[in-house]
């Protein structure tokens, strides 16, 4: 073990822009999100209600159209939670994702699938599986995924 070897490095920074086609159902979703409504898909055959909306029911392999979309309640039930407490680069922004943040899996009333999203609580002792949660909308919605920046835990006395 001699003196520490000097590391040879070549550095560069890359900017890689992408544009995604989001599909007709997502267009409808974001149009309605601007009106503070949450829309999902309903299978015309088996009646399964999907969040997020999508074009095909995996069980039936049948197409679900914009006409098959239905509105879900912004309220739901918490099934599991964590508080993310580690650093990483967010590929959607290119910068570090701010942490810690609350993160939950919940089922919206009326939906058959679950969703995961930010929760505005970073103390894990404040969460309780089975408690009610509610989507919080930005005051001025823009038809963007961040129109619901997070869900909030509903306190028992509010019920």
């Amino acid at each position: 073990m001699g003196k520490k070897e000097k590391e040879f490095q070549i550095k560069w920074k890359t900017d890689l822009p992408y544009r995604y086609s989001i599909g007709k159902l997502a267009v409808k979703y974001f149009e309605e999100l601007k009106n503070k409504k949450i829309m999902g898909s309903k299978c015309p055959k088996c009646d399964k209600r999907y969040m997020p909306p999508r074009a095909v029911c995996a069980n039936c392999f049948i197409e679900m159209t914009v006409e098959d979309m239905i509105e879900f309640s912004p309220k739901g039930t918490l099934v599991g939670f964590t508080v993310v407490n580690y650093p990483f680069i967010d590929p959607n922004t290119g910068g570090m994702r701010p942490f810690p943040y609350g993160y939950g899996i919940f089922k919206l009333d009326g939906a058959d699938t679950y969703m995961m999203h930010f929760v505005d609580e970073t103390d894990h002792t404040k969460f309780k599986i089975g408690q009610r949660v509610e989507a919080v909308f930005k005051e001025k919605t823009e038809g963007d995924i961040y129109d619901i920046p997070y869900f909030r835990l509903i306190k028992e006395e509010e019920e």
Partner: protein
Amino acid sequence: MPKHNVAVVGIGQTKFRSKRRDVNIPEMIYEAVKMALDDAQMEPKDVDAILIGNMDHFEGINFSEMWCGIDAAPGYLKPVVKIATGGTTGSSLGICGYYNVASGIYKNILVVGWEKLNEGGATTGIITAFDPVWERPSLAGALGPLALMANIYAARYGITSEQAAKVTVKNRSNAANNPFAHIQMPDITLEDVMNSQMISYPLRLHDCCPQSEGACAVIYANEEETKKITDNPAWFKGVSTAHYYTFGCDDLMFDLPTAAIASKKIYKKLGIKDPVKDLDVAEIYEPTSWSELSWTESLGFCGKGEGGKLLDEGITQMTGELPVNPSGGVLSTNPIGATALVRFAEAAIQVMGRGGKRQIPDVETAMGMGFGGSLWTELAILGKDPKPLR
């Protein structure tokens, strides 16, 4: 039914570490491939075809088989196919290699999985694997969802963080017997795990797998070729795959239902009635300590909610009835594109009796497991012969 029986006849793995700055990607792949060729006493010209796999977004590269699969893996003038299925990349490689030889397309094949996670970021790379509109904005790579799974599992069955910590102590103690394992913490205690930093409740630092760099190469051959190469092969008895819904939260998949589906399918095919009695060792893909407890249940090693009890009774320890992860498992080594292939390779090593200090005595039948994607499971069962158990 396969047209040909298929055996593992050569294995190479690099010593896994957090950083391999001394080599570039092809140089690292070459190390494992050369070891596998030497192990099977084969020349590059003897190999029929190459399957190579990793998750390119972890390194910020693309179509890397073009510049890694020709000289580093001996693909010159040969078919080279890339496979990338997230965490299951290694098991998809392992299973596709099996199909290619079992079907009679090739008489042998070399499969190689690799990753160099320190060159990018696994969490960032994993996020890019998911739907850019719906899933990326809040996804925290793998550990966030794995923490949710652990949280639901613990609440449902009353599993304690101490029981989870015991998995880490078991696997990292085992890793001390494995010269290829990345994390070497032979003296790790329950307190070390339970006092380590909270990464994502209930996961602490030592409840989580590391990010590793390294490669694993395995050579398969049909019966005729195998006879020429070795009198101590490990035979494939069967493979099984189960994929599930599109999005990770389309169903409540905290206990990995695909593991139950894939294992029931393969146990039935091979006449396995009680995996604890019928299997001699299992190398499972446990990204967290909690996952091992939960997935030993899903794989049918015990009943629902009994994963902690199974461990407490010592059944999954090195000296137990069904040792789980004598190599140290994923909690000790995680070069993602190689991780599940290492599970298959370690199962083969146990069948061949070449495990050195990590060898379980008298292994006849061994199972390897891959986990990844949208909570997918892939399994292979290897043995001293290619026949079903019953």
